[in-house]
């Protein structure tokens, strides 16, 4: 378990390393700002996977992820003239990812919960595992995603960015336009709600087993 907890910190350091690239000195970004289609394609290819993963972490295995990736890149490329180069391109892109993910979570919550399709869950679960392990993992994943869906979008994003991505509170605050103290509160509340929801889920499971 401790090993699991330690992993996001490695993640965070890798993110910080990416963020430390010289900002506006990237010639690809400069070319893209000039309207070069080749440069845009290259930028897309460089960041598409990362954007997809980040969106998945923030919103879960949602069938709309590809559309959201498209939305992120369209927004980023359209906003390139406004990009001042004070932060790295990836940081700027990450901010757009967070904003798009937040908007999507809000809309999804307003529409109501929609169960994930089994095919997506099956895709995520390791295909090499035995059928029994696969079923268990699927069940576990479903339960975890249900728990996460109970959180409000702001809390969910703060929790994922802190616990999974391992970002510091000021970094998260910069991404979501909030103070570090506010972000800390959101993370605490999210953890508390998740724990309570997990307890309820456990008790319900026990009751069903007794029947």
């Amino acid at each position, binding site marked *: 378990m401790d090993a699991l907890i330690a992993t996001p910190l490695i993640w965070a350091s890798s993110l910080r390393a990416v963020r430390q690239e010289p900002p506006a000195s990237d010639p690809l970004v400069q070319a893209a700002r000039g309207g070069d289609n080749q440069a845009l394609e290259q930028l897309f290819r460089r960041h598409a*996977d990362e954007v997809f993963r980040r969106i998945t972490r923030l919103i879960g295995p949602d069938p709309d992820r590809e559309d959201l990736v498209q939305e992120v890149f369209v927004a980023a490329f359209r906003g390139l003239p406004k990009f001042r180069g004070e932060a790295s391109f990836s940081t700027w892109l990450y901010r757009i990812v967070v904003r798009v993910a937040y908007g999507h979570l809000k809309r999804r919550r307003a529409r109501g919960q929609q169960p994930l399709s089994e095919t997506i869950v099956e895709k995520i679960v390791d295909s090499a595992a035995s059928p029994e392990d696969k079923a268990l993992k699927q069940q576990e994943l479903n339960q975890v995603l249900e*728990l996460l869906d109970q959180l409000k979008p702001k809390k969910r994003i703060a929790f994922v960015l802190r616990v999974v991505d391992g970002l510091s509170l000021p970094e998260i605050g910069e991404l979501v336009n909030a103070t570090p103290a506010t972000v800390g509160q959101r993370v*605490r509340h999210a953890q508390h709600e998740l724990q309570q929801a997990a307890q309820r889920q456990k008790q319900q499971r026990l009751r069903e087993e007794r029947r």
Partner: protein
Amino acid sequence: MSCNKATDALLGLQGDNQALIAHRRECPHCSQATEVIGTLRSAIESSAADGLDQVARLRIQNRVLAELTQPPPRQGARWALWIPSALALVLLAAWALWPRAKVIGDSSPPQQAKRIVPPPLQQTAPLALYLIAGRGALDRVSEIGATHQVLRAEAGQTLRARLGATDVLLRGPGRLSTAASADGQQLTLHSGRLVVDSPTRHDQPLAIVAGQYRIVIVGTRFAVARPDAISLTVVVERGEVAIFQSAEGIARLRAGQTWSNGNADGALNALLERTAWSPPASARHWIARVSDTTGSLYARGHYLGEAPLVAQLPLGLASIDLRRSGHARRIEQRPLGAVRRRALPAVTNLRQPVKTRRKRSPAARTQPRAPDVAVDNPGKTGERQPTRPTAEARYRAAEQAIARGELPVAQRIFEQLLDDPTAQALWPTARLDLARVYLRRGDPRRAAQLLAAVPQGSSLSGAAHFLRCQAKLRNQKHAEAFRCLETFQTRYPGSGQLEQALFLSAQLAEKLGGCRQAKPLIERYLRRFAHGRYRQRLVQRCNAQ
């Protein structure tokens, strides 16, 4: 070690150390939290482990580049959606926050209540007072402006008041209060005997209110006696006097006629003869100037006739400075200007037991001496049995207790009177007084029960009706109280409590429907009582809003 700190450390919000890690392992709550977070993290990471496949990436790339070639959506389209929403929101907020007057049965749009301008104070006849008989009798006189006054004459004293051309004489013990109204001057005789001499019919009529009765003076000399709360005698020496009960005139007396609702007071005729009097020439200069020395109790602009505080004051001049709440802030009390108060004689009529030794007869000496034992029945031993005070005396004692502010004492006496069949004649008034005591002691329920026993159509039904309204008011039944007061004003337009009823109606209307609703009632009050004691309170309150 708290679980909150451990959880914070787990979430990386605060420092982590060995102690916290150890706590997380040992504490079941924290270990569960650790487990939940670990599960979530692994699940989220595993779900996001894979990136886009080649085909999907190419598809998205094409879509992005294709979309970039198209013009971006116009900002106007977004505004087109926002403007109606914002407008709807503004309208909703305006509807919610629009000040709405609480209107009773009126759907007309709320209007700003117009400023109420009371009619100017009418010039009322100045009151001059003389103490002409009794302890501290003197010829000095004072002239007091048109304010509410309470005059008290002690036993054996006679107060003479002059209201313009009208001469009023109060024989103690008695209490009289004066008030100016739109109709003119009004005197209320609470108790005692009164002689009124009105040689000419002046422009402003003078009315004497005695309980349910109202005596309007039309240029006459007559006497009124009110020995207790129910009995009333009127003797006319000159001119004419009309007696009204509520709105109905019940008697019109000419010179030499006497009217009484019970046993006529024979002393009134003698009083009329004895008190033929004119002010001494030495006192004329006192009438001309407004002085502040002799014989009156008043509070500027406030009626204090029923206040126990006033009843406790001795005869003299007291100026009472009132707070807005109606409570006395400062009382300046002065005895009668030139009265040299003699010390009351020491109480000497208490009999001391006298020990007398009777000689025993020789025959008695042979008898054994009776043992000294306490006797339960003193009557049989020949000792004097204390005489029981009469019902009237007890009633007076209760009234005095009320005047002193000793309400529990008064309540006990009235309750005893109502249980005493020999005091049956006093029951109707005792019921009313007891109901008043209950109301003042904050027990409107018992007051209402008591008032239900007062029969309709009796001479006390008006007072009982008003007390019922007050009981409803105290019970917070505002709408019922309002209706009750309206009925009272219709049924008893000449009642002594009309002013208070009008005031309470206006106040209730303001409470229930705001100043706009109260305005007609305030104006009604001002038309009827232009110099009334509630004038300032009603006018200021609504004009302030």
